[in-house]
């Protein structure tokens, strides 16, 4: 077998890496580091690919600082597709004028709940600082005086769903705050073998909500009463699809107490649960100019809905 060339493994002049995942996938890493602008570029490019309905494209997957497409190589050659993707990237440019038509959803969270607390206590031996809870560790690491002010920061500005997946349908959340206020938390040293369903976690620069019980490495902060998936599709918000969140959604975490948590769980039980959400346009240019004022306006739309 000939020695394959690895010429296709070098980023282009803009630092973008086009690379092949076997013969069916093209993975495009727009940047190594996360930022809101790179994620918006991934969302703009993938939305454009979707609009173009290119023959042979079977999956279009935006990611945090990247995107990938699956193709049928019998219909379109991977190299021809890569050239097409480069053209689309040029056409989209830096996505400065991109307007994200999306929705904002209220996500109630019971912080410091008994379920994630019991899970994190079980796996202290896999944690950086076994003597602290995950919230205490993350608050301290990010320079917050106490857990309460750390939680205030989490619920103080909404997040953009920068990517969905892993399993159906984990929403990755990237907070709409300037880089200097971004919270960053390492993952567990070794992943847990158990995480309760609907746990809210934080790993690297992202929140995630675990849809089902399972392994996981994100720091555990709380639990959400609202379901992430409904395979039975008997809840009103899941009639069309058994998942709810989509890339580009905005979410706002809201702290709740145990009685509100139980009340929402009861609506899941009697199948009347609905998300509280509102349609809106997110204009990144406004956010880059005035992040706090823009975020306030987004939240007002949700509160008024």
């Amino acid at each position, binding site marked *: *077998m000939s020695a394959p060339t690895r010429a296709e493994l070098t980023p282009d002049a803009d630092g973008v890496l086009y690379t092949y995942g076997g013969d069916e*996938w093209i993975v495009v890493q727009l940047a190594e580091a996360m930022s809101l602008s790179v994620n918006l570029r991934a969302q703009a490019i993938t939305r454009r690919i979707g609009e173009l309905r290119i023959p042979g494209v079977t999956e279009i997957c935006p990611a945090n600082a990247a995107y990938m497409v699956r193709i049928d190589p*019998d219909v379109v050659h991977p190299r021809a597709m890569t050239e097409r993707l480069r053209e689309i990237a040029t056409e989209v440019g830096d996505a400065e004028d991109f307007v994200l038509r999306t929705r904002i959803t209220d996500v109630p969270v019971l912080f410091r709940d008994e379920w994630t607390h019991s899970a994190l206590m079980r796996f202290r031996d896999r944690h950086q600082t076994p003597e602290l809870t995950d919230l205490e560790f993350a608050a301290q690491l990010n320079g917050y005086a106490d857990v309460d002010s750390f939680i205030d920061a989490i619920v103080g500005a909404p997040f953009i769903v920068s990517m969905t997946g892993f399993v159906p349908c984990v929403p990755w959340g990237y907070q709409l705050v300037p880089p200097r206020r971004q919270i960053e938390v390492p993952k567990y040293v070794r992943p847990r073998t158990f995480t309760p369903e609907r746990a809210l976690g934080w790993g690297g620069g992202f929140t995630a909500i675990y849809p089902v019980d399972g392994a996981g490495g994100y720091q555990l902060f709380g639990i959400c009463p609202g379901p992430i998936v409904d395979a039975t599709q008997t809840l009103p918000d899941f009639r069309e699809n058994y998942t709810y969140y989509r890339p580009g959604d905005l979410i706002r975490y809201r702290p709740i107490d145990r009685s509100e948590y139980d009340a929402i769980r009861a609506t899941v039980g009697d199948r009347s649960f609905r998300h509280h959400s509102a349609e809106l346009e997110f204009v990144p240019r406004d956010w880059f100019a005035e992040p706090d004022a823009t975020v306030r306006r987004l939240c007002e739309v949700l509160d008024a809905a």
Partner: protein
Amino acid sequence: MPLEIRRPGLMTTVQDAGRSGGYHLGMPPSGAMDLFSYEVANLLVGNTDGQAALECTYLGPEIEFTEPVRIAVTGADLPARVNGTEIESWTAHDVAAGDVLSFDFLRSGARAYLGISGGIDVPSVFGSRSTYTLVGAGGFEGRALRAGDELKVGVTGPDRRAAARSVPAALRTTHPAQVELRVVVGLASYRVVPASLAAFFSTDWRVTSDANRVGYRYRGGGIDFVARTPPAGAGSDPANVVDIGYPVGSIQVPGGSEPIALLRDAVTGGGYATIATIISADIARAGQSRSNDVTRFVEVSLDEALTARREAADRLNRVRSALGFD
């Protein structure tokens, strides 16, 4: 009900060629791990429209038929019997109401496919009848079969019965305990020290017991990552990147110690650096390997991957011709 499950086997699921269009939400394709064997099982029983078959893992089921159907077993070497008499695999057989299909112990491979004329009739979920057990979607009630389950078969369409009843030996798959899986290097392979990436291809990787439809975990060596200051959002572990999509077939190395190759129920994305991807022509071979089998990963170029893809398609076409389909 035409099929009564007397014993379920270890993990018997309804599968077809899988679904697409939901990967960005976290919905993997699912479908038969060994698509070639699945397609051939369908052809043998006259199904030419993507009907669903049963994927039988390691230990086969025991099934009583309550209506006459045509069946065929392909894939892993899992010897089948009808009413106690061994039947030839890769061959169509007609069974009558009251006949019982059972299996001996597995001889090689991991997954056998039971094709049934008309196909297993379960509702199509997002364009496929395939079972995705993690969220309980598709297939028969979203789960592996259990004793007592009763399955319907679809109505057989126009007569598309194969002229020949058996696949020529040269076109059947064999399953050696030492497999080579061809991969295209790419993705975040820049994160790996070059000498370590070279060593990856000369290592005998052993399939661990953590090997299922989501992915296979291997043991036998390690991977060294290039030291760096972590980029924003990635987290501090050198095996981590800013969370990104995982192609089906992609290989990641959490902690640098045990590579995981994702297969048809893949997790669709995450924060581990992926280094290479098993080519489409070899996904079936990965899914037919089993715990303790030795695997070598062999680097190929994109062009070689595309050639292998054409060869795999040609092989299925030769089966079609041999069975008398034009």
